[in-house]
């Protein structure tokens, strides 16, 4: 009965979504206030029914109701409760429902916090979000109903894929989706502005905080995904350039470009048509990623089960939403060319370069992801492109960008005196060069040109980001008080610097060895002694495992004791490697059990990963910067106060 209620609630949600998507838009076009007023209650009602439906599915999982096909496929009696909940979004149908729920939450948030928007603008934004919701609800109801029954009910479920039985994966998809779906708000604002034809910079100001929130959730979501892949896929990599990862990374790149471009549009009224295009692109790339992952046209390690009818549906949806938005863009954008110019040395120039380089990077990732398809069309050959290409292609636009960031941060709007700029950044530049050469030589005993250049880039941004806060702390004369948004930018760039340092060191100085070991044997890796003391059988709630006990010493001193496992999950009978990791701020020690080699020997992978934590730390600091920036007072002022304040010239973005 509960599943049927959930299904019925979804149908009701669809009818409300249609109402939310159609009425306010008609109302806004005709200037009919009563139709426009429907937007908020319809959005709220839709949210209530979607949430109820989501609750029903969760309930079915908690009750282990194996008469529901989706539950039977992805759960099991012995599954720990926390994973019964996360199993709700563990596969296609449920994750789609989660997507819809998050869209409904964003919509309610927009309708709640948009009191100062003109009624017609609010009606249009909510209307566009309603249309998007219609598409996803139809998709669920027509092709991917999570409440489909299985009669007769299964005795026990087929279990959740063991890879997904992990706290990291329990929270990673929701955060990622909050980010993806959040870009639909920026998209809705852009489309609403284009529909209204009123494209002055106010829409940019309204969009900015929403975009920043979406962006920061996406940042955290991607970082968590990378962290999960690091310890759960078992082999110590943290980014694989897999289609699924790229699907989340492309919107992130476009979203990052959008945040910067919105700053220019809001402050200076420039780049208007470009910003619109980015707002459309960020969300389009989220949708495109969903399509690639769920249609099965690209092969990936974590692909969802594929079904051509689903692929076709998303493709049609994609065509209508993105195609419609781009057509509207082609009609509206020509009137947006702005007359205002700017000097070659100004913040505008740097933000333009930032946008160009980020878009090139996103295009390259898209090209690499789609290249197997492109080549198969062109020549019939089946190819794949590995991480080495992505690494090269990605660094080419990114390295110049990182150097430019440091300059751009300290450049004023409109025009900047070059001598003052160079005087300001001289010290950080010297510090960066010195550290960039010394750190690899001194701590790691070797260096290459690429390592030094990348490290200088990383230290450069860190040093440059600290410049302004330090001057403020010392209360230097002439140092402007930092606004929240300027502080947020500084923190985010500091995070970028930490990330660059982490990536450079971990990819240059990782030591990785596959070794055959018997219990009692010792090996030395990167100055640490690893001793495999014993191998024992242990039992988990729904798996059996072989557990190694590995003691790590350095110069005879005890460092840590790790217990890597080789698990076999009882229902699916599939083996899983559970690595043992000793975490340190400046290095991880990583031990994973491979396979039995005969004669009591096991293959063991031992890794020394210096500074790997900086990768995720950097990402979280970036997201923190987003929180600081999005909480800027400017975005909380009432419409009246804001008009008086006007556009504050010279203020940092």
């Amino acid at each position, binding site marked *: 009965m509960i599943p049927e209620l959930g299904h019925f609630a979804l149908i009701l949600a669809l009818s409300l979504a249609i109402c939310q998507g159609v009425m306010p838009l008609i109302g806004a076009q005709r200037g009919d206030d009563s139709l426009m007023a429907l937007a908020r209650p319809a959005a709220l009602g839709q949210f209530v029914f979607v949430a109820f439906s989501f609750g029903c599915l969760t309930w079915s999982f908690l009750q282990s109701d194996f008469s529901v*096909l989706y539950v*039977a*496929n992805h759960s099991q009696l012995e599954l720990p409760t926390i994973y019964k909940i996360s199993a709700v979004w563990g596969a296609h149908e449920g994750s789609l429902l989660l997507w819809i729920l998050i869209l409904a939450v964003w919509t309610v948030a927009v309708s709640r916090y948009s009191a100062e928007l003109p009624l017609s603008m609010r009606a249009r934004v909510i209307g566009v979000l309603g249309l998007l919701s219609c598409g996803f609800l139809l998709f669920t109801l027509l092709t991917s109903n999570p409440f489909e029954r*299985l*009669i*007769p009910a*299964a*005795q026990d479920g*087929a279990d959740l894929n063991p890879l997904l039985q992990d706290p990291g994966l329990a929270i990673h998809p929701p955060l990622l989706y909050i980010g993806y779906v959040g870009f639909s708000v920026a998209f809705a604002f852009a489309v609403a502005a284009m529909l209204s034809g009123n494209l002055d910079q106010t829409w940019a100001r309204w969009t900015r905080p929403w975009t920043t929130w979406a962006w920061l959730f996406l940042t955290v979501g991607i970082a968590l995904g990378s962290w999960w892949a690091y310890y759960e896929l078992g082999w110590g990599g943290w980014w694989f350039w897999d289609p699924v990862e790229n699907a989340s990374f492309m919107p992130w790149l476009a979203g990052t470009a959008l945040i910067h471009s919105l700053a220019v549009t809001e402050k200076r009224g420039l780049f208007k*048509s470009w910003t619109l*295009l980015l707002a*459309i*692109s960020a969300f*389009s790339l989220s949708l495109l990623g969903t*399509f690639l992952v769920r*249609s*099965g*046209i690209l092969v990936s390690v974590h692909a969802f089960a*594929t*079904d*051509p009818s689903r*692929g*076709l549906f998303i*493709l049609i949806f*994609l*065509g209508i939403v*993105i*195609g419609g938005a*781009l*057509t509207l*863009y*082609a009609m509206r*954008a*020509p009137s947006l060319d702005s007359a205002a110019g700017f000097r070659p040395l100004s913040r505008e120039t740097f933000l333009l370069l930032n946008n160009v380089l980020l878009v090139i990077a996103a295009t390259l990732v898209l090209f690499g992801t*789609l290249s197997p*398809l*492109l080549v*198969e*069309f062109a020549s019939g050959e089946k190819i794949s492109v590995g991480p080495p290409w992505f690494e090269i292609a990605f660094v080419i636009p990114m390295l110049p960008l990182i150097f430019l960031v440091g300059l751009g941060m300290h450049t004023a709007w409109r025009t900047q005196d070059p001598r003052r700029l160079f005087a300001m950044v001289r010290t950080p530049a010297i510090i960066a060069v010195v550290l960039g050469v010394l750190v690899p030589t001194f701590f790691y005993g070797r260096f290459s040109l690429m390592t030094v250049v990348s490290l200088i880039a990383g230290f450069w941004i860190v040093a440059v980001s600290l410049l302004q806060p330090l001057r403020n702390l010392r209360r230097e004369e002439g140092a402007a008080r930092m606004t929240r948004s300027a502080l947020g930018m500084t923190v985010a760039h500091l995070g970028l610097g930490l990330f660059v340092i982490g990536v450079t060191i971990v990819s240059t100085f990782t030591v990785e060895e596959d070794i055959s070991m018997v219990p009692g044997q010792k090996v030395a890796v990167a100055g640490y002694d690893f001793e495999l003391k014993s191998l024992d059988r242990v039992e988990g709630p729904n798996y059996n495992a072989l557990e190694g006990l590995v003691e790590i010493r350095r110069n005879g001193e005890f460092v840590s004791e790790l217990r890597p496992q080789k698990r076999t999950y009882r229902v*699916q009978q599939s083996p899983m490697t559970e690595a043992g990791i000793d975490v340190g701020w400046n290095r991880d020690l990583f031990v994973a059990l491979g396979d039995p080699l005969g004669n009591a020997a096991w293959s063991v992978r031992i890794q020394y990963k210096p500074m790997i934590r900086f990768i995720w730390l950097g990402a979280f600091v970036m997201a923190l910067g987003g929180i600081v920036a999005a909480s800027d007072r400017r975005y909380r002022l009432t419409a009246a106060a804001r008009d008086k304040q006007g556009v504050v010239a010279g203020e940092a973005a």
Partner: protein
Amino acid sequence: MLRYAAPAIVFAGMVAMFYFALGRDPGELPSPYLGKPAPQFELPRVKDPSATIGSADYAGQTVLVNIWATWCVGCRQEHDFLLQLANSNAIPIIGINWRDQRQEAITWLRQLGDPYVASGYDADGRVGIDWGAYGAPETFLIGPDGTVLYKHISPLTQQVWEQEFVPRIEQVKQASL
């Protein structure tokens, strides 16, 4: 202005490419045996290891060969429909129990009912692979001359049965008259 229409044009090109890519999905690929003789097989029976079931047992008949396993939820989904087919004597169904445990398979057949004339026990999955199985369930329609008339991937339903299988069976009947 072309400059502003460019994104829409590029996007249209991408959609066209994706559309063709979707058609290339392996699930849609016809079995390489379609219209060709089905692979020969002989397997010990699930319920009675001393007896065998194989191609020879259904020579000259129109039959369904259904690849199933107890670990496959799709098989449970289509099981009711298979029972219905078997009860209505529509067509003999031969099972290939693929990569499974014998005891679990026997329990499954006892609890849920047995729609099969007999099921061959294909523990190492060799026969399934000979048949070009991508996964379970898969259902093959075999004509009296031993050729594969149709192959269906994913659970069999009333709708698929009526649309794809019945007309082909009728055709064979017509031809043999």
